[in-house]
């Protein structure tokens, strides 16, 4: 059996890669750190025009009917450029969740914010609608009717908000087991999408660092010629290559309805989180002092990796889920 992406999947990835190379260079991420929204100016609209924002919706709902195997490479690209946009929350989590429950999905380029866990909601202030798990009820809320309090994120392009709502605010779209199952599936898509973004981020940090240690000379030769750096970067490459197949396998499992898909997602998210954190740590060390500076782009990718490694469940919580499944079996 040959497990490989087909031409369409590669073409979709390449199209997004080309678009993001133009619309989301590091300066865009840097600008998002200090602008009013934390988001890009041009990338989101271009992605909406391309069909990315509605890609996971069925064709009859205005989407493209793409499954996880189709979008996993697309999400990897959004991670590679540290795209400061709610592509996970809107395209992969929120839109399919609302559609599955028979709700109207806001048309692109409107974005969706989610709060399916305790914690904060990403880009809630610029979202058209907010999907909140409130006890055993799933609610669809107009963010302008909720009280949003900005919270500090280490990645300042990720604008996080604590959400306070009046009791009974918004519309209940599901309750009980229906809400629980829909949210569980949505969380798995979120974890897988974050894992894919972490793979892209890890690769970006590795590539940037390899480039840096090749041009930075000391004692008459590139610093990358020293084994101490070579081995660190080789370890990062190995960690990425061990995590990547788990991410693709989890995508396949979600599409195929594999009964173990949740475990596969957890394997993917835990390994991708670890790989990206290792990439961040070694990239910082191999860069030396310049890596600590605000002016060096590395921190944009590093801080995104730190945040995503803790979003949609951190490595430890996902390993716990794998362990629980193993013990139960």
């Amino acid at each position, binding site marked *: 059996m040959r497990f490989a992406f087909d031409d369409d999947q590669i073409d979709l990835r390449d*199209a997004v890669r080309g678009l993001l190379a133009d619309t989301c260079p590091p300066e865009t991420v840097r600008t998002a750190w200090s602008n009013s929204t934390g988001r890009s100016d041009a990338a989101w609209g271009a992605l909406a025009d391309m069909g990315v924002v509605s890609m996971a919706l069925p064709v009859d709902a205005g989407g493209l009917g*793409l499954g996880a195997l189709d979008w996993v490479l697309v999400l990897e690209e959004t991670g590679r450029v540290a795209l400061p946009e709610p592509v996970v929350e809107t395209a992969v989590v929120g839109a399919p969740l609302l559609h599955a429950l028979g709700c109207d999905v806001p048309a692109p380029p409107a974005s969706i914010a989610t709060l399916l866990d305790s914690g904060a909601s990403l880009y809630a202030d610029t979202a058209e609608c907010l999907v909140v798990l409130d006890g055993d009820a799933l609610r669809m809320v107009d963010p302008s009717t909720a009280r949003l309090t900005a919270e500090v994120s280490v990645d300042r392009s990720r604008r996080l908000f604590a959400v306070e709502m009046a009791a009974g605010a918004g519309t209940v779209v599901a309750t009980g087991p229906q809400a629980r199952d829909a949210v569980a599936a949505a969380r798995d898509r979120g974890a897988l999408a974050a894992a894919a973004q972490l793979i892209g981020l890890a690769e970006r940090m590795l590539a940037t660092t390899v480039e840096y240690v090749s041009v930075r000379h000391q004692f008459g030769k590139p610093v990358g010629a020293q084994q101490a750096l070579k081995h660190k970067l080789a370890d990062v490459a190995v960690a990425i290559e061990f995590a990547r197949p788990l991410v693709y396998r989890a995508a396949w499992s979600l599409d195929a309805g594999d009964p173990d898909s949740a475990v596969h997602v957890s394997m993917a998210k835990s390994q991708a989180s670890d790989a990206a954190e290792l990439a961040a740590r070694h990239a910082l060390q191999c860069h030396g002092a310049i890596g600590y500076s605000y002016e060096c782009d590395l921190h944009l990718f590093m801080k995104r990796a730190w945040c995503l490694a803790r979003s949609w469940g951190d490595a430890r919580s996902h390993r716990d889920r794998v362990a629980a499944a193993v013990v139960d079996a």
Partner: protein
Amino acid sequence: MNIVVLVKQIPDPAGPQELNADHTLKREGKLILDESDSYGVEIALQLRESAGGGDVTLVSMAPNGETSGLRTALAMGADDAILVGDDALPGAAALTTAKVLAGAIGRKQYDLVIGAVESSDGYVGVVPAMIAELLGLPSLTFAKKIDIDGSVIRIERQTEAGYDEVEGALPALVSVTAGVVEPRYPSFKGIMAAKKKPLEQVTVADLGVSVPGFNGNEEVTSVEDAPARAAGEKIEDDGTAFERIVAFLDEQKVL
């Protein structure tokens, strides 16, 4: 309005470029749409939209039945494509290329033929004018703006000093400069639809074109690396370095 766009599929310029022993460019593996042709595709799509209908046909010549670059242009919105592939074509000189492409264009009914000024891998820059001559079409080159008014085409022809306004009768051939329009990104729908669009693969024999030996009268006898950039001059500042800088700028006639 029916438009033919000449597109070249080239090795990715971001990757390493290698030459064969006969000094021709290695074209194994995946080829991509030459970026300079994406402007022609975009302007063709816009002209078709403003005309309210018609077809945009791509015409390309490539080895190994390579279609990746054509698929990109089809994904942008072109309707169909003709690909000329022939084992005898690698290394074809400009005149041979022009004859083959003119033969392929002749299979379609067209109002306008659009090409880039030159390809990004060969930089020969004479193929569009040759095709116009072979097809007996007015040749309007270096267009940075195109207007169609009935059966008249007007362009702004880029010059060193600015631009000339040039007018011709349709059918005509236009070569467009980079930057004439902003090429669109192919949409996901377009990418998925591109696979189903007609792509006709033909050989030189199918076109009934006779060519006088594929290399014509051209031969590349040797290839040299571009000279490395000379190192700059380093000056230890003893308090008078600014005088050297001023003298240097004066020499360059910048001041």
